[in-house]
């Protein structure tokens, strides 16, 4: 069981979260952070873009969307992922982040379509991006995922299966018009209200 202190060990209280405030763009989400690939990266390039919307349906102009994902072979660049039979890319960390544009409220990243990764419970997960959403006005991060449209594996995914059926569509991107030959996916994140995006207790 997770979260229980081991014998003889005290569990420390967590440092409380707080908001990014309006000025995080001084440091977090610089333009280079949104380009997750370089010439050495293997895999199909994809552009993912969307709005972050508040409860009134208004685009949020000072949000930050962070992406964590496996590479095209389905491997995470992390010491816990010990599947050495799968390649790591020199040109790909799996991490990117994009602030929403002040004028439009849209975020955008250039990355690769990830491969499937194990769920740790005997099965495979459908390809997905892990997203962390923060903004001025948000006192804690919200964790969600983006899945790809027309993937049969989505229905069997252990995390998708945890979500009430009528809300699952909020986790699936839609295909947009390709830009300069790059496959583009559209994925809005709704913090509140009708069609509120599913957020996970991570």
């Amino acid at each position, binding site marked *: 069981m997770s979260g229980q202190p081991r014998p003889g060990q005290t569990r420390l209280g967590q440092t*409380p979260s707080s908001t990014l405030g309006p000025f995080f763009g001084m440091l977090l989400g610089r333009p280079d952070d949104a380009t997750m690939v370089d010439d050495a990266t293997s895999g199909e390039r994809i552009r993912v873009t969307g709005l972050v919307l508040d409860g009134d349906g208004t685009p949020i102009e000072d949000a930050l969307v962070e992406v964590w994902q496996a590479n095209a072979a389905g491997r995470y660049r992390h010491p816990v992922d010990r599947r050495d039979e799968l390649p790591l890319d020199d040109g790909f960390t799996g991490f990117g982040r994009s602030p929403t544009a002040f004028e439009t409220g849209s975020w955008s990243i250039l990355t690769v379509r990830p491969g499937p990764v194990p769920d740790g419970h005997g099965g495979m997960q459908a390809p997905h991006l892990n997203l962390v959403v923060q903004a001025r006005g948000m006192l804690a991060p919200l964790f969600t995922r983006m899945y790809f449209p027309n993937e049969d594996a989505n229905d069997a995914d252990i995390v998708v299966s945890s979500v009430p059926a009528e809300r699952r569509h909020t986790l699936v991107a839609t295909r947009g018009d390709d830009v300069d030959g790059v496959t583009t996916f559209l994925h809005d994140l709704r913090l509140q209200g009708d069609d509120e995006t599913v957020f996970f207790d991570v």
Partner: protein
Amino acid sequence: MSTDSPDLPRLHPRDHADHPPFRYPDYKSSVARSPDHDLVSILATLSEATGPGPAWTELSPEDADLTTNAGTGGVAIGARIIVTGRVLDAAGNGIPDTLVEIWQANAAGRYAHWRETEYDAPLDPNFLGVGQCRTDSDGTYRFQTIRPGPYPWGNHPNAWRPAHIHLSLMGPSLGSRLVTQLYFAGDPMLHLDPIYCSAPPQSRHRVLAHYDHGVTEADWATGWRFDIVLAGAEATPFEAEEVA
């Protein structure tokens, strides 16, 4: 979130009782930017057991000194301080090799950001107010910077943010992600600040940096200690070349 897989490391879930609520009406901007639904519980997978913290490598030591990192050759104006502490997992182990990023106002309370247009306090050309470092093998981070000033904001009449430094940490797993704000213990403005007060009373003290004479350097800078406890995976010392 729960983990019961032998294939995955032990994860400490976010303890929501220690964190602010998503909706805290005294902080007006939170009202429309907070979910109506409860978070959905999931079984942790490899995606939650990993995270971007260990993937970052390109930092230079200069990034940890905000008094000189503006690239002007000049030195920032204000009270020089050292801010240091350990980044810990919930079991008390230091988390090595994790990215810590900070941003802040200058000594006059002014951010070097184009959106700061209303507070007519001076900018310091030698102070950008941003820094980065990685924790060492003990989980210790250390910045040299300028003590920030308080500044006004529009939340309510005569609203002022107490002096604070924003911190961003990645940590060993996805759920370790933390953005928080460090305040200076003894600041009389804290109880007037809805953002400070949004943290629950039992955990609020954990965002206070304390003066530490052992950190203070003679004839140079005063020292402040601020330890940070992250949710998520416990620290697992690893060789850097495993991910290189």
